[in-house]
């Protein structure tokens, strides 16, 4: 049976570029998370690829400050909808796979902190695990790479740093994700590197009371993914390198924030006939809570 899979790179992009949990917009940074602070983030994203491949993911992220230095971040993809063109025996048709996605649990520990009046510089490594809570066979016509869940465990390790002032901030991250094999299928391991800058647009001058702020955002996400393996055989239509540039805005108050952001590909090197990234959009809503239960 000949099956040309347009969705082959889809899963890699979904999981490693747009699937990272954290307090930052597209990647976790080293921003302060107070002990007892609980933030809830709802983050729907939609992405469009060549060849009729689309993906929509609704992410729910809970961050919890367990101590002044230790934080836990739980991300669940509560709804994933992937659509791809599958060509079989010379005939093409659109296949859709909807369902529950995977869950990521990460821990972050701040190992360096230098605070100043209205500024902070922090370095924090992350360690996390991707749990295969998602549906990996919700539509048998959809290739494995396009299923809502991966079906496999993975580990994710990264180091992040952030420098923030009252006017602007910069953050960077570099990390690696190692995927295990499940049912004979293994997603390619991934190296990722991200950077972000933001600048305060409003208010122009800070008074003693600052109830809200608007920032302009510019982030970038680089991903280099190895090819997936199926029954030990390399799928040469998977993996590659992708650099996204993400402009956006964030409106933030003491208790909540709203973010809008676009994903634009700046560099792509897709293996074989894998689908290339066209564009994507993200909206995020964050709400802060507090619990006295912490270390």
């Amino acid at each position, binding site marked *: 049976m000949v099956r040309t899979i347009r969705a082959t790179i889809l899963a890699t992009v979904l999981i490693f570029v747009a699937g990272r949990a954290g307090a930052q917009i597209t990647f976790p940074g080293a921003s302060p998370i*107070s002990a007892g602070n609980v933030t809830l983030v709802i983050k729907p994203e939609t992405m469009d690829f060549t060849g009729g491949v689309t993906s929509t993911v609704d992410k729910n992220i809970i961050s919890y400050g367990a101590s002044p230095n230790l934080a836990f971040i739980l991300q669940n993809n509560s709804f994933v909808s992937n659509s791809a063109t599958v060509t079989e025996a010379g005939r093409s048709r659109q296949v859709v796979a909807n369902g529950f996605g995977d869950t990521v649990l990460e821990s972050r520990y701040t190992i360096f902190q230098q605070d100043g009046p209205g500024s902070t510089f922090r370095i924090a490594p992350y360690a996390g695990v991707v749990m295969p809570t998602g549906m990996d066979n919700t539509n048998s016509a959809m290739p494995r790479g396009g299923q809502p869940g991966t079906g496999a465990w993975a580990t994710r390790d990264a180091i992040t740093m952030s420098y923030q002032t009252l006017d602007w901030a910069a953050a960077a991250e570099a990390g690696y994700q190692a995927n295990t094999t499940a049912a004979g299928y293994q997603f390619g391991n991934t190296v990722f590197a991200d950077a972000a800058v933001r600048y305060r647009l409003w208010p122009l001058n800070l008074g003693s009371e600052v109830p809200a702020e608007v920032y302009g955002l510019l982030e970038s996400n680089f991903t280099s993914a190895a090819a997936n393996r199926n029954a030990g055989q390399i799928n040469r239509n998977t993996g590659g390198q992708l650099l996204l540039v993400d402009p956006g805005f964030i409106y933030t108050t003491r208790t909540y924030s709203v973010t809008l952001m676009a994903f634009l590909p700046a560099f792509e090197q897709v293996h074989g006939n894998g689908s290339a990234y066209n564009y994507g959009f993200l909206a995020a809503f964050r709400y802060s809570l507090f619990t006295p239960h912490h270390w």
Partner: protein
Amino acid sequence: MKDRPPGMNDIRTDTHSCSKRNKSPRRWGTILPVVAVVLAGPVRAAHAIIPVCNEVQMTVWGVITPGSTFGLIKNFESIPGVDGASFDLRHAVATVRFQPGAIVTDDQLRAAVRSASYTSREIHRVSECPEPVARPAG
């Protein structure tokens, strides 16, 4: 160290404390002293009239957005006896208000800042708490 202007809120009539988690006691905490002074004034009985030590200003480093003030303020408000707190981003100064009669130490304030993952600096007591002085009746 600057003094608060004299006013009704600067009159402490007893050393009661109330839970800051309950909004109602906070309101009564404002109303009761006023009622007490109004009722006690004509009688001119012996009672203590002293300025309250109900506010401190504390320099805190590392706070950079309105969102990052949330955890700091909540950690302050977790201290028993703290009535409320606010943060001046521009000057990196937190203002912490206490319930009447509450005793909150500098160590408690510094621990709250550390718990919020920030760095505490100077603490300024806006007004001191002298010992109560009894006025003669009549």
